[in-house]
């Protein structure tokens, strides 16, 4: 993957774990992305309205009561339909993945398989965005 693959692109990271946000920020900044991270679904929705990210990496399982990554996906689809939404799932969430697909998720990432897949999933997203698709 080219180090500056994300140049000119904005990515929003939603995860309720501070370390994951911090590591993700560094990971994507090194690849040239303009990165925003947030710990809550509500804030992710507000940031989407304000900044219109090209890519959103949304953790499905949020500790915050009453809101999941799926809820955030639904809102993003309404306020910024062109956003490329990648859902981050646990290995046991296949049924939720299916629901996310129906709601318009662009791709998936399983936390435990990140090393193999993250660069691949991001490259695919960037190619589609640069070609004008979500």
């Amino acid at each position, binding site marked *: *993957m*080219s*180090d500056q693959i994300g140049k000119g692109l904005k990515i929003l990271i939603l995860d309720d*774990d501070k*370390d*994951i946000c911090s*590591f*993700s920020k*560094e*990971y994507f900044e*090194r*690849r040239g992305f303009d990165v925003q991270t947030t710990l809550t679904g509500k804030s992710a929705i507000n940031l989407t309205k304000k900044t219109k990210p090209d890519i959103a990496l949304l953790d499905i*399982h949020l500790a915050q009561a009453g809101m999941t990554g799926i809820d955030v996906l639904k809102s993003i689809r309404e306020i910024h339909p062109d956003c490329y939404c990648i859902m*981050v799932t*646990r*290995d*046991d969430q296949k049924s939720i993945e299916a629901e996310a697909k129906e709601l318009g998720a662009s791709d998936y990432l*399983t*936390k*435990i398989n*990140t*090393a193999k897949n*993250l*660069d691949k999933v991001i490259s695919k997203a960037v190619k589609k965005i640069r070609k004008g698709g979500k």
Partner: protein
Amino acid sequence: MSANPLSNETEIYDRLKKNLKKIKDPVLKEILDDCWELIDHHIGNSVYKMQLNLGSHVTGDKPEDVPAEHGKRLLVNCDDIRTFLIKLKDATKNRKD
């Protein structure tokens, strides 16, 4: 590189698969589901952090040395996994009491 397999590891996996099909008790099924929910959450998050942490430095076109501070955080993630496995073992091992 993964850990050396146990000499009887293949047999253990085969036995697990075989015995799993025999489980009809809903309580046992619930125990297994609970264990897997915890495993996926804790191991998944720790592995994800380690991959992002190291991936920032060692993948891409220009790999660089991992800073000592990031090495320390990696050890914290390893310790998180160890702590979780101890808790899980303590909660699930056979007891006489």
